[in-house]
């Protein structure tokens, strides 16, 4: 691990917050994609069935 010196807090804070925001974004987008795909398959199933 590189020696972050006296700004260790700032750097970890920046990386930590960005990591949370990025993973949150990906989770939301992928989650919604799956949810909508499932709902569409259900409705289309009902329609063709």
């Amino acid at each position, binding site marked *: 691990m590189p020696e*972050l010196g006296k700004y260790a807090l700032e750097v970890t804070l920046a*990386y930590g*917050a*960005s990591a949370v*925001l990025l993973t949150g974004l*990906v989770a939301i*987008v992928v989650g919604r*994609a799956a949810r909508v795909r499932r709902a569409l398959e259900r409705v289309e199933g009902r*329609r063709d069935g």
Partner: protein
Amino acid sequence: MSLWSYANPVRFMGATRPLVPVLGAVAAVCILVGLAWGFFFTPDDYRQGSTVKIIYLHVPSALMAINAWFMMLVASLVWLIRRHHVSALAARAAAPVGVTMTLIALVTGAVWGSPMWGTWWAWDPRLTSFLILFLFYLGYIALWQAVEDPDAAADLTSVLCLVGSVFAVLSRYAVNFWNQGLHQGASLSLDAEKNVADVFYYPLLVCIAGFVALFAALVLLGTRTEIRARRLHVLRLRERMADA
């Protein structure tokens, strides 16, 4: 076979099916490599110490925050002029990615500047412009959710995006006028020679490539979801019509 043919939803869905995972993988690799390279293998800056490592997050996210809005502007124009559903839905899909990128830029910018400024937040013109852009994003997303009818929503949000863009630029200069500036010089500028030493420059480029790939992957996935949601809406509407 012009580009517009991709505006046909069915063709768009087919064409982008393989792209999403590929872009996702590229994004993951580039971001991990770039960040690792910048974080572990670059020296500290003599003045800023290790905080310079935040550049690998701040610059790419700031870049994507602005380009996301610009992409939404172009997509809105395409919707208003050519009435292609896909471009309106792409604009809608880009907004959450854009707002997250703006948030990242704000947080990393504030944290990066805090040792120099002595406070967690300083009203620096460039950082404040991102705060304003953040508000524009909120308004745009809120309007999409507030309107039920998809076509009306696409039109209204497109008009808002156009007007918002003009005011975003206006605010950019108003904020400059309002406060001088504490932000460090541009890390990337097309004309001037490289502002950042080579050793920092290359990992930065890799990170930027990673963020661009991430943006593309998420927007494509988002657009595909919006198209499916539109189809869901139409099917449900028709079911209601059938009962009537």
